[in-house]
């Protein structure tokens, strides 16, 4: 009896390690979970199909639950390509030598963060954040994800710059909603007075009629900065054949399926380089997110 069971348990533990072999030649990519999951899965399954067709290899998209998980998967070579934000891309490329930013959205050259407020707060839109100083103080505030560029890094930078204080000292409560869509929903519902989010998400939700403009409005727009990009590992040519990196880059730059582009939402992809993201790295170092 006892031994029977123990013997079987032992055997099963051996199976556990052998049952999970995976074809090594699948090209796997991921993306930071900056929006609602269903949208991401829909969008990136489309990208996977497109890339698979263009590159003639199996391409698989893996959804992750956090920005850090996307970076780790990239760093651990479990994914070879990723759609990163500005900050996550910088973090990832620092950790994987030889990795490169190969393409960015047309809009990502000059990206923006919108500060939005629940209309009950009676905060009026302004051109300069410093004009809102007295009104913002003591309000509740939510960022997006802890690792987000447009949802955390840039808004935190401008809050610190304007108030000369940490966000926790400016606002009565500081939260991390998790992603941009949720920031919008939480501010709209009044769970938080003020929030900061990716302007593309705002524009798209607004265009789709998903924003109650009586409940929430933009109060300030940040200056522009570089953001999202496709980053690829340096060792893909070794694994998938010479010129593979070039082929991926071209495939992305040639992506012109309007429906797929709309889901990002970007009007197209243009070349990018690691140096484009120097400003992001400096900002991150300044506020102490990067060592």
């Amino acid at each position, binding site marked *: *009896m*006892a*031994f*029977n069971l123990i013997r079987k348990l032992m055997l099963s533990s051996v199976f556990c390690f052998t049952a999970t072999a995976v074809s090594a030649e699948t090209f796997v990519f991921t993306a930071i979970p900056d929006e609602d999951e269903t949208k991401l899965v829909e969008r990136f399954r489309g990208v996977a199909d497109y890339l698979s067709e263009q590159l003639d290899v199996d391409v698989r998209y893996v959804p992750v639950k956090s920005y850090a998980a996307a970076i780790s998967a990239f760093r651990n070579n479990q994914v070879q390509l990723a759609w990163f934000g500005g900050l996550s891309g910088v973090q990832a490329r620092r950790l994987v030598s030889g990795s490169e930013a190969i393409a960015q959205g047309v809009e990502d050259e000059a990206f923006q963060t919108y500060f939005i407020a629940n209309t009950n707060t009676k905060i009026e839109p302004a051109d300069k954040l410093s004009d809102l100083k007295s009104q913002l103080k003591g309000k509740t505030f939510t960022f997006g994800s802890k690792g987000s560029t447009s949802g955390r890094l840039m808004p935190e930078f401008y809050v610190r710059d304007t108030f000369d204080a940490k966000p926790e000292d400016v606002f009565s409560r500081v939260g991390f909603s998790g992603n941009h869509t949720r920031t919008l929903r939480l501010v709209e519902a009044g769970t938080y007075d003020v929030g900061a989010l990716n302007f593309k998400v705002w524009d798209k939700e607004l265009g789709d009629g998903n924003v109650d403009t009586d409940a929430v409005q933009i109060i300030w727009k940040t200056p522009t900065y570089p953001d999202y990009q496709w980053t690829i590992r340096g060792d893909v040519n070794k694994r998938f054949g010479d010129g593979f990196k070039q082929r991926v880059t071209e495939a992305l730059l040639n992506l012109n399926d309007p429906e797929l582009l709309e889901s990002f939402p970007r009007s197209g992809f243009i070349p990018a380089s690691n140096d484009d993201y120097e400003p992001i790295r400096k900002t991150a170092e300044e506020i102490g997110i990067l060592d």
Partner: protein
Amino acid sequence: MTSFDLSGLTASFSGKRVIGPLSLRINTGDKVALVGKSGAGKSTLIRLIHERVNRDSSLIPQDLGLVNALSVFHNVFMGQLDKHPTWYNTVTLARPFSKDRNEVHTLLNTLGMTEKLWTPTASLSGGQRQRVAIARALYRNAAVLLADEPVSALDGPMANSVMTHLRDGFSTSIIALHDVELALRYCTRIVGIQGGQVALDQPSENLTTSDIMSLY
């Protein structure tokens, strides 16, 4: 196993001496009955002797020492665990070999217990449990038997039958018994214990029931 000397036996409970110092010489072939009223120290003496002669004795403690979750067969088989390698014992736990099954079956037959061979001892009656412990001691087949009230839960005929098996199965035995009749009938030597000391030590043919009753 030859005769052995037990000298300087002592035992204390919470600072109070309950046995000894006491010396006893046991000769090969002795069938010793330890008699005395309860609390005289018979059980303690059995335990002390067991500590001394451990290797060569079959023990039937008062609380039997059965593994309740195991079957009658396994409890009996435990008497010979030292005679087999570990793998053999382990396999036996799951599936006993027919040779052992037959041996144990035959042995239990003599004790009138065959139909219960695969019952866990937890669900047996007091008398049945006692016979399992006795069977284990017989199966162990050591030179010396150390038993503490081995037939206390058995009725008259069964007690006599079991005592016969114990007498025939061991060349030397030391049995604590409160039943004086059984002691005189199945043992060759009576040792009376009183206040932790040997108060009486005589061949049984020299004694009658009334001689022993003075100890009670």
